[in-house]
């Protein structure tokens, strides 16, 4: 077993060697521009792009023509939301999204608000799901788009996407989902799930960084978006720019591998995740799972270790890469807004750790990580005045803290 150990696969994943092999010829020998229509270099590149388009479409139950290549999910989210807002401006200006979305969705919506759009940010139930009745009531005759992520990147909770899409369609509203964390990990089908637009990115599924796609539905309904970048009119006019052929080949191959291996891989992920969870829960008291375990990605565990601040825990396990919802680890010095939306108190949010398992993790690593976490949490609790008070029977919620 080699250290450091990487358990942060929601942030990014390594490129699968098979993906890299598929990409390599497209940097040097097969370097053509996929838009060059009059020689074999161009045809070769176009063929590779078409194959990738098909591989991506197959993974999500779409057709190849519905796949638009982008630079990643940040761009896909921007293009979907801004593109719909602009295209359907005459129909309405109301967008519904949720408090736990990725910043690429939230900040896009905030930008549109500045330009006059109305945005509803749905609250969360404490299990991390949205309340479908609240969603239904939020829809008005001005609503043009609902954007709710498929699976959350911090807590791994999977929304009832098919039902959300159904509600949207009953009211003639388009449904976009940020599918970044779900695609390739759990079965996603745009038809079954009533999805009109979906963002995906390669680097979360063992493909390269800087390439992604937007699924744009072509039938029932035919979705149109206004391009957000002007240029040569590539990707059926929706996204100009010479295609990044090697990366697109990588994204396609990454999708094909995920599709072929998903049943086996998701079983293995949930086995490892459940083992990690069971070990931590059996050896440590006062640990809390954030978000429901019932509707969750198989590779995600998000746990609060009460009375142990997250950054100090990360410091103690410095040969293990995980992330924390603690303010000390965020750029904003605020604890995780996702946990806050679930009603997790700031005190527990500061103690949360996100474990993201991946294809290349082993059972030996899980055992090692569990043992290290247990050891460091115990050590830091010996250092924690809060743990001491709790053990003495003090109800911490009744204490007058000096800093408040």
């Amino acid at each position, binding site marked *: 077993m080699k250290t450091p150990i990487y358990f942060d696969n929601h942030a990014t994943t390594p490129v699968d060697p098979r993906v890299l092999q598929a990409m390599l010829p497209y940097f040097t020998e097969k370097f053509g521009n996929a838009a060059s229509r009059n020689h074999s270099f161009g045809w070769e590149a176009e063929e590779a792009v078409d194959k990738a388009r098909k591989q991506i479409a197959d993974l999500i139950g779409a057709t190849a023509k519905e796949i638009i290549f982008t630079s990643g999910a940040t761009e896909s989210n921007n293009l979907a939301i801004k593109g719909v807002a602009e295209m359907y401006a005459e129909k309405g200006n109301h967008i519904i999204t949720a408090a736990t979305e990725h910043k690429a969705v939230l900040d896009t919506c905030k930008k549109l608000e500045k330009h006059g759009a109305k945005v509803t940010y749905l609250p969360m139930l404490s299990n991390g799901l949205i309340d479908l009745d609240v969603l239904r009531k939020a829809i008005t005759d001005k609503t043009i788009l609902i954007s709710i992520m498929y699976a959350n990147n911090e807590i791994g909770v999977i929304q009832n996407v098919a039902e959300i899409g159904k509600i949207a369609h009953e009211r003639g509203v388009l449904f976009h989902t940020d599918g970044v964390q779900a695609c390739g990990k759990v079965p996603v089908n745009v038809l079954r799930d009533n999805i009109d637009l979906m963002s995906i990115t390669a680097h979360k599924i063992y493909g390269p960084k800087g390439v992604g796609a937007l699924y744009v539905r072509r039938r029932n309904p035919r979705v149109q978006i206004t391009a957000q970048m002007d240029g040569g009119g590539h990707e059926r006019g929706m996204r100009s720019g010479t295609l990044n052929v090697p990366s697109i080949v990588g994204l396609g191959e990454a999708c094909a591998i995920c599709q072929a291996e998903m049943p086996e891989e998701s079983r293995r992920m949930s086995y490892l995740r459940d083992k990690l969870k069971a070990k931590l829960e059996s050896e440590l008291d006062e640990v809390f799972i954030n978000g429901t375990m019932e509707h969750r990605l198989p590779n995600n565990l998000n746990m609060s270790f009460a*009375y*142990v*601040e997250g*950054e*100090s825990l990360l*410091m*103690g396990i410095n040969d293990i890469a995980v992330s924390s919802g*603690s*303010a*000390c680890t965020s750029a904003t*010095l605020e*604890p995780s807004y996702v946990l806050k939306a679930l009603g997790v*108190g*700031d*005190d527990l949010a*500061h103690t949360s750790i996100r474990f993201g398992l991946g294809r290349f993790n082993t059972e030996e690593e899980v055992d090692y990580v569990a043992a290290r976490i247990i050891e460091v949490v115990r050590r830091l609790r*010996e*250092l*924690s*005045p*809060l*743990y*001491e008070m709790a053990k003495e029977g003090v109800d*911490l919620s009744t204490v007058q*803290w*000096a*800093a*408040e």
Partner: protein
Amino acid sequence: MAYSDKVLDHYSHPRNVGSMDKNDPNVGTGMVGAPECGDVMKLQVKVDEATGIIADAKFKTFGCGSAIASSSLATEWLKGKTVDEALAIKNTDIVNELSLPPVKIHCSVLAEDAIKAAIGDYKKKQGAHKPAGETVAS
């Protein structure tokens, strides 16, 4: 973020971890910060009655590595000082000693606050213990 060697050393080998009897008249206890803010420091001093010198200091901290290091360092510095010398410890001394980056300065501020709170608690107890006639007339 990279931690300084001194922060790492205090984090890995914290000095003077523990608790003293907070009801002991010679022990002053300071507790600062809040769990919602991600930092709580408890710092205690025990003052030698005869000499007025801090004979022992203990801490427990919930917080990041820099908060743990700041309070660990504070306990080291407190031992052997008089109460008034202890009050002269400044957060900037801690920042310099531990090479804390700007985002961690609040940890040193909290440690200074904890020292002041512990000494304040000790002084309050001593005042309360003295016979009524000895308190300073206002």
